[in-house]
């Protein structure tokens, strides 16, 4: 046992201040989530009128009561389609996450048809691709509650259309990998969307409301002059008996979901998992709830990342790896929910020793088949003559190379700053983390806004010097402010999360649970035996 001795005074002024600041960020996240839920709820009357469940009711009915649920991409689209922070809706008109259906860990995907009738947003395609990717990596059955008006023609972009095909490719890949895909047609699924049921292994069609067609009545009339009702063109009843697109016909939404639950239950999916038991464990000596008071929301204020680690790992028991070598880069061995893992965090920028230590640590984790958890709080790799001479590029590269190629699960968290190549070495977005979540207070980018502005200032001063002219102080101040704002706006967690540069935003106090859930998910996937096939299941 290497029990970590916390130096944090719970209840001290700074603890209280940190906590208040952090909870304000959490409240901002929750209020945005509520904004989307409330918006969707405005359409409740329409759902009731049609005898339907609302999207959130569908999700509640689909998931096993009381089983954990990890939402994915909860901030998707925030500040993307609508750049006004006061009105922009997060979620991208979809509610997605990992939850349990008939005891099966599944990727659930519910179209939020309460918002613009489920019409896709600029980030919808990327969110769907992200979910399909996680389902494939984590071997999760993919269950989609479909009701979507399709794409808003005014928001059409050729890029979206081109990328959109990936949604169907993703379904085909899942099917071929031996991972079942299930679609419940609650409402219309038209045009490209019609391939959603077409590409699914199991389709449940809800009578009256469920529909799938390449072109609705309006388009058919325009294209060929044929007069047909939507229901005739693609009603669930028609598909169940005429085309065979629908396997199971449901009386209503609740019945459709019940059928989906039965279909998943009948897979005996968990018979094909080798035991991956977790060891017995005890909760951290310091409550994870205290994390909110431990970490200042301003990344410039230093703190010891081990204080965070101690609140995440079982029994606050952590073994420091090379603590005195490159000490700002903190590597520890510990376990979470009884699952051994390596954790890396930053007490400042990464120096050459820190980089080599990290590279070695990653390789050791890989050798021991131990997942790695990255707690990003770094302003980047050290710069300056001393560090360049010490081979910062070379050593940093080793770290980036190691992080790219380790074969063990990688779970990244943006808990503070994650700047520059430090983000790369700490398993940022481009390094295929199995899971990547952000705290609402985090900042990511090539550098901080002030730093960028400072760089610009130096460039301007030097240029002026060369030209022998006076620096226009007013112009430079304006320029600095503009650059700071330009960088800061983009480094804000709500912006990056809205742009899908992570898998979602979480309450920092939930971090241990999120990590535990992700570690379980990865462990389950890696002990699961699939029966892949070459082409996926063809719909007959």
């Amino acid at each position, binding site marked *: 046992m290497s029990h970590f001795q916390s130096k944090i005074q719970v209840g001290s002024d700074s603890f209280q201040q940190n906590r208040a600041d952090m909870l304000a960020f959490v409240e901002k996240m929750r209020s945005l989530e509520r904004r989307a839920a409330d918006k969707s709820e405005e359409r409740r009357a329409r759902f009731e009128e049609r005898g339907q469940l609302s999207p959130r009711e569908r999700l509640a009915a689909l998931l096993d009561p009381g089983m954990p649920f990890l939402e994915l991409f909860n901030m998707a689209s925030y500040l993307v389609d609508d750049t006004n922070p006061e009105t922009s809706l997060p979620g991208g008109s979809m509610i997605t996450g990992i939850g349990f259906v008939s005891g099966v860990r599944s990727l659930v995907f519910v179209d939020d048809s309460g918002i613009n009738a489920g019409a896709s947003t600029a980030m919808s395609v990327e969110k769907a691709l992200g979910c399909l990717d996680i389902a494939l990596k984590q071997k999760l059955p993919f269950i989609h509650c479909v009701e979507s008006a399709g794409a808003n023609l005014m928001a059409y972009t050729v890029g979206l259309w081109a990328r959109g095909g990936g949604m169907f490719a993703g379904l085909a890949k899942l099917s071929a990998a031996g991972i079942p895909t299930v679609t419940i047609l609650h409402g219309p699924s038209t045009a490209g969307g019609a391939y959603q049921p077409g590409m699914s292994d199991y389709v449940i069609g809800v009578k009256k409301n469920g529909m799938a067609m390449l072109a609705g009545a309006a388009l058919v009339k325009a294209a060929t002059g044929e007069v047909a009702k939507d229901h005739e063109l693609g009603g669930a009843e028609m598909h169940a008996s005429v085309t065979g697109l629908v396997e199971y016909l449901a009386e209503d939404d609740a019945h459709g979901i019940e059928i989906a639950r039965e279909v998943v239950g009948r897979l005996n999916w968990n018979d094909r998992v080798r035991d991956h038991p977790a060891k017995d464990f005890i909760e951290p000596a310091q409550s994870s709830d205290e994390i909110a008071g431990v970490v200042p929301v301003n990344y410039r204020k230093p703190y010891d990342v081990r204080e965070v680690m101690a609140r995440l790992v079982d029994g606050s028991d952590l073994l420091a790896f090379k603590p005195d070598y490159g000490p700002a880069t903190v590597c520890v061995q510990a376990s979470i929910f009884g699952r051994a893992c390596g954790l890396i965090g930053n007490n400042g920028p990464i120096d050459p020793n820190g980089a080599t230590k990290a590279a070695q640590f990653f390789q050791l984790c890989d050798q021991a088949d131990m997942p790695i958890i990255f707690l990003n709080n770094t302003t980047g790799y050290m710069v300056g003559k001393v560090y360049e001479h010490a081979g910062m590029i070379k050593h940093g590269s080793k770290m980036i190379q190691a992080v790219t190629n380790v074969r063990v699960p990688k779970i990244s968290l943006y808990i503070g700053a994650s700047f520059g190549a430090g983000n790369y070495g700490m398993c940022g977005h481009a390094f295929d983390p199995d899971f990547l979540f952000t705290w609402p207070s985090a900042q990511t980018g090539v550098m901080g806004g002030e730093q960028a502005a400072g760089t610009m200032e130096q460039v301007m001063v030097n240029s002026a010097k060369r030209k022998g002219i006076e620096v226009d102080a007013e112009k430079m101040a304006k320029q600095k402010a503009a650059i700071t704002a330009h960088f800061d706006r983009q480094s804000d967690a709500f912006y990056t999360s809205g742009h899908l540069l992570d898998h979602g935003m979480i309450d920092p106090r939930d971090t241990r*649970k999120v990590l535990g859930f992700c570690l379980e998910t990865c462990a389950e996937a890696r002990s699961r035996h699939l029966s892949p096939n070459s082409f996926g299941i063809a719909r007959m």
Partner: protein
Amino acid sequence: MTVTKINKVLIANRGEIALRIMKTAQTVGIKTVAIYTEADAGSPHQAFADQAVLIGEGPVADSYLNSDKIIAAAIDCGADAIHPGYGFMSERSDFAQACKEAGLIFIGPSPQDIELMGNKAAAKRKMIEAGVPCVPGYEGEDQSPDAFKQAAKSIGFPLMVKAAAGGGGKGMRLVESEDELATGLELARSEAENAFGNGELILEKAITRPRHVEVQIFADRLGNTLHLGERDCSVQRRHQKVVEEAPCPVLTSDLRSTMGQVAVESAKSIAYEGAGTVEFLLAEDSSFYFLEMNTRLQVEHPVTEEITGRDLVALQFAVAEGRALGFEQSDVTLSGHAIEVRLYAEDPEQDFLPQTGDVKDWQTSKDLDVRTDEGIQTGQNLSPFYDPMLAKIIAYGDDREEARHSLIKGLKDTWLFGVKTNRDFLIEILENETFAEGQATTAFLQEEFGDRKNGKEETAVRAKIVAAALLYFSLQENSLEKSAGVSETLLGWGSPGFLISQLKLSQNGDVHTVSVRQEAPDGVTISLEQGSSYVEYLEDALRIDGTKVVIKSFLHDEDDLYFALDATTHHFRHVKAVSLLEAGGSSGQITAPMHGNIMEITASVGSKIKAGERLAVLEAMKMQHELIADHDGVVSEIYMAAGSQVKAGDLLISIALNEE
């Protein structure tokens, strides 16, 4: 007198009384033979016996009431005696006679005494002759309306019209005034004819709000006739005893010995042998009247056993063997108090309609001062062929209050899941103030529970909350079990900050939607139409808005939820989609709602029918049930013939649905 040792006895009965008799037989070294039917196969009385003989399918006429089969069975297995228990063959003099002729000992009085006492009019005449006080009345052989009119006038109103051959409240009518007399006679006569095959009637002065007090007597062949004190069986519903106790709470020792003496004299007057019960009405002014004499072991005999410390069945065997009782009247001492309740498979919410079905869980009290005479077990099917009485729960105490409290506790520790019972109703009776004060008369149940509401609103809401919470946590547990491993610390957690589930529960056909929001690992907010409650999950209990509610037992069987709270038991169904209920309800597949006999088929193959139209009539538990078309359509198939016996759930008729 010679003593004839009984070596093997056939018990011509079933259920709790068959078991009760066999247990004593075992202790006194007599081998036991059970008779059973296909419907009773595997039942406890069959399993317990040394030998068991199958004597029929299910209906009693062909089995437990078939004298020839029973006697043949006894002879085949070499039994030398037959114990009839109560009901069935116990008071059939022809059966007693047939036993005698077959060389079998019938455990009971002589056929003559059975016949005499079985006819109320004759019995009463005999008792009047013997100087036993009787309710003023008319028991003449002249059954003409004029004779009754004359007699009624001299007795005065109100009066009771009773079947002379009656028992169990059948063929009994209260007549308040002269103009009701003719109708009363007519109804009583037709009931008497149906029930007993004998329309002879008697009249009796109606004693208002009397107590039913009966004296247990015992007589051996050596001339020793004595009594074992009385039982108060005033708590009756439609003349069916529900609660019985000994001693009677208002009897003085003087009155006790007077009534006991009268009972003994009446038995002696007919040279009675064995166990018998002389029933009296005890009026408010302490006057008492002979009612009838039962020539058998009574259902409620255990309360007498509890306060006298004597095994009445053992005494029956002794007398039947020709031995002496072995004690005198002066040796009989009554100590303490005992109360018995009868547990019935019936639904108090639906006018006590008998219930059938599978026993999903049956638990009895383990308290030492609580005795359960039972004849059922978990997994058994309760068929419609037999009496719905399932068990008797008896508690003993040093005094009445102690016995009453023990019995309440004993009942709270007793539950049956799967079939509705009157358990909760029994607890309500025992907790009723009038009963607690020992003031219950035969009018008690009608007066206090006559317009019994279907439970209190508050209790109903609480039951819904409990049902939702138990279902929620049970579903969570099921999912956890089926999963490939989830840390328990993650249960109830969702990254959006909460988890919401919507559950639909049906109770007596009403569907309630309940939303459950998990707020803490063991805490949920449950919202229903009546508002929200915070529920914490504890070991064997829930805390609802701060108040602890003990869950005595909980069973989640497929989609059925059964649970027992302190004094109430509940059944809910988890409805996964309401449309499924509706779809199931109009499938055009008509199934038997319960076991029974098809009386009549009104539909024919090919006939066009409308939803709501009658298709057939099923008789079960002596009640007729109409089978109704649930859909417009054409009758496509009829799977049974009139007169055939069907099981619950059997497909009877198919209707081809009219497509739009």
